């Protein structure tokens, strides 16, 4: 085998999450009320557009979650030796972005630059020294000396536009076929409806968003092999590569945190509300205590502890990737412990209300067991709160990760994340002239991700909250 697959804990949980999402889709398709609620999400242009953006991020994150260790080339003269695998854990995304990952420069270079950002002393051929901006090793190295970068970019514009246009046409064709089939094969009609935005679901918004995304992807696809599109950082790493890698960290923090704590919040919240008595007291006590500890401090304390445990047991982890993954997972758990209390309280309140309703009392009168009532009658009726809490928490967690990593109690410093990116970029602002691109890249990627998540959360809340 050319490679050995590696399954990190967070990978596993992410895949479980994706499988869960697929199961939920099947479940939703079978139940008309749920289908109606999701249709409401799809009818809003903001819903469709934000879903498209989130999908793009999810694709990046999933590609970055398929890890493997590549086989090292066999040693000369030892033909029968067993294959040795590199200790470096790579992901499919790393593999696809290999040109970006491997073509590092000496240090900072601006976006689309062909020269370093700082002067260097070079020995002249005829003796003596001079200080010049040396050419980059990779960025713009295809250009002859003195060629204009702007002219080169203009040349590539046509290719980019045609790539993006082709992607758009493909998308439009698929959409027309799908919508047209729903309209008994009146495809011309379907095409017109999509373009005018008259379809039931807001396909036009999705289409416009896809157009923007494919334009960006096409530009990156064409230009990234030639230039450092958003420049390089202090050690010469491509900033675009760093930004794309950060997406997975943000997604992991945003989704797995709620996922690991969801069972506790749901079980405890429902139990407290329905059973009452000492169970209620105990659970209320538990979450008041956890709430009383300032969140950041609890996280800080727990992360410091985790770090000690990880540092004192180096034998638990085979590779560096596993170690930083353990810290990422630990951070998810810790963030989860501090964030489940809110949902638990909401669920307790809702259950208190539900248990007095007629149908629950009827079920009790018929002698249904407590477990059955909780499972059949209470749980399905609080799921909308869970759903809303899930999507609402996501953006907050992504933002929290950046702040925590900046403070030094977030992800492992070797894990690429928006927080570590910002942390490294901090010193660059004080430089003269300023190095702005890594900050700008982190800002742009985070802003788009969090904005999409916020818009999506709003639409989902509007669709699922019965009071609205």
């Amino acid at each position, binding site marked *: 085998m050319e490679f050995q697959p590696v399954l990190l804990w967070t990978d596993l949980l992410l895949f479980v999450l994706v499988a869960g999402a697929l199961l939920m889709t099947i479940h939703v398709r079978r139940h008309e009320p749920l289908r109606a609620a999701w249709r409401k999400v799809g009818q809003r242009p903001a819903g469709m557009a934000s879903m498209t953006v989130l999908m793009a991020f999810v694709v990046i994150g999933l590609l970055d979650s398929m890890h493997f260790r590549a086989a090292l080339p066999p040693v000369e003269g030892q033909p029968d030796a067993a294959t040795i695998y590199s200790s470096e854990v790579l992901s499919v995304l790393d593999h696809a972005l290999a040109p970006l990952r491997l073509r590092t420069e000496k240090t900072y270079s601006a976006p689309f630059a062909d020269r370093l950002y700082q002067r260097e002393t070079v020995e002249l051929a005829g003796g003596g020294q001079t200080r010049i901006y040396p050419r980059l090793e990779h960025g713009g190295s295809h250009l002859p000396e003195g060629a204009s970068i702007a002219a080169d970019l203009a040349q590539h514009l046509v290719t980019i536009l045609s790539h993006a246009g082709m992607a758009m046409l493909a998308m439009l064709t698929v959409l027309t076929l799908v919508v047209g089939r729903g309209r008994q094969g009146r495809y011309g009609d379907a095409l017109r409806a999509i373009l005018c935005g008259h379809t039931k679901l807001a396909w036009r918004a999705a289409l416009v968003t896809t157009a923007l995304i494919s334009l960006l992807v096409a530009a990156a696809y064409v230009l990234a092999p030639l230039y450092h599109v958003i420049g390089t950082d202090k050690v010469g790493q491509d900033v675009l590569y760093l930004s794309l890698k950060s997406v997975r960290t943000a997604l992991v923090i945003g989704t797995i945190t709620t996922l690991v704590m969801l069972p506790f919040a749901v079980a405890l919240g429902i139990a407290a509300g329905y059973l009452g008595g000492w169970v209620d007291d105990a659970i209320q*006590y538990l979450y*008041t*205590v*956890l*709430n*009383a*500890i*300032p969140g*950041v*401090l*609890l996280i*800080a*304390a*727990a992360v*410091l*502890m985790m770090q*000690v*445990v990880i*540092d*004192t047991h180096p034998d638990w982890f085979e590779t560096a990737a596993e170690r930083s993954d353990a810290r990422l997972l630990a951070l998810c758990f810790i963030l989860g412990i501090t964030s489940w209390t809110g949902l638990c309280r909401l669920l307790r309140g809702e259950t208190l209300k539900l248990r007095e309703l007629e149908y629950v009392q009827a079920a009790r009168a018929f002698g249904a067991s407590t477990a059955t009532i909780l499972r059949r009658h209470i749980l399905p009726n609080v799921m909308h709160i869970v759903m809303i809490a899930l999507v609402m928490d996501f*953006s907050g967690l992504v*933002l929290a990760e*950046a*702040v925590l990593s*900046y*403070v*030094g*109690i977030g992800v492992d410093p070797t894990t690429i994340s*928006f927080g570590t990116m*910002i942390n490294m970029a*901090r010193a660059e*602002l004080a430089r003269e002239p300023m190095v702005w691109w890594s*900050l700008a890249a982190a*800002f742009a990627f*985070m*802003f788009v991700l*969090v*904005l999409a998540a*916020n*818009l999506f959360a*709003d639409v989902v809340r509007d669709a699922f909250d019965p009071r609205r």
Partner: protein
Amino acid sequence: MLGYVLRRLLYAIPILIGVNLITFLLFFVVNSPDDMARMQIGVKRATPEAIERWKVDRGYDKPMFINETKTGTARITETLFFDKSLRMFALDFGRADDGRDIATEILDRMGPSLAIALPTFLLSLFASITFALLLVFFRASYLDFWGVVLCVAMMSVSSLFYIIGGQWLVSKLWALVPISGYAGGLDAFRFLVLPVLISVIAGLGSSARWYRTIFLEEISRDYVRTARAKGLSELRVLFGHVLRNALIPVLTGVVVVIPLLFMGSLLVESFFAIPGLGSYTIDAINAQDFAVVRAMVFIGSVLYIIGLILTDLSYTLVDPRVRLE
């Protein structure tokens, strides 16, 4: 009323004990003093003697819960749990790793923290409520729509960027105020303007949107219709009636934070090098000074509980129908 407060205070004791137990578990059981010493000294140089010396220096050499070598009450009092955890109830926090007394340090740093947190709190309350009322006044118009869009966009920016951007723009580009630092007395104003302004702007998006939903919920009530029917102007209705009646949900979120104000803001203080409690905590986290972090956790939870009680009391002030018995 007094009886109610007393009962609430009694109720707070088990919660504080719970907090104490959790922090004790985190700091001493999950991670033994030996591990701590090894981290601080450095794994390579951590000989058994060095670890023992480190523990004796900082008073970590006692047994966890019960001291078998002593008799009488000393069996309990000569332990880590009593020394490091229970003493906090008497506000005895011990010494930080740099040898300074944590309690005096906290007293010294309270001032700067309050100087930045209090104006921030008042200004952001004022700004976000005004903004929210404005949006409600123009509800269901383009102004409202774009206002909400602006709020969502502002919410989506990480607070790190507000600070970095603000420092860069105001301090570096326009050179209006110093980038960071602090001075006592009236001079402090120069150093405080920017951090306060940035904190207000950073929190505006989410809080204005939250207040807007509260006000919108209130505006569909019957008494609002009556007030309009009486011929009151929309502004009078909003400020006189809606704002007054929406105070309960507003207070629920707001009063809890008031005591916590003195803990300062971790991020803003450390970015602007303000010698308050927030930056103290961050420094302690970075230096892995567990005694300080533990003290701050304890103080934070005490303040939170005070905040909860204050919230309940504030209800009676706003709404005479609320009786605390």
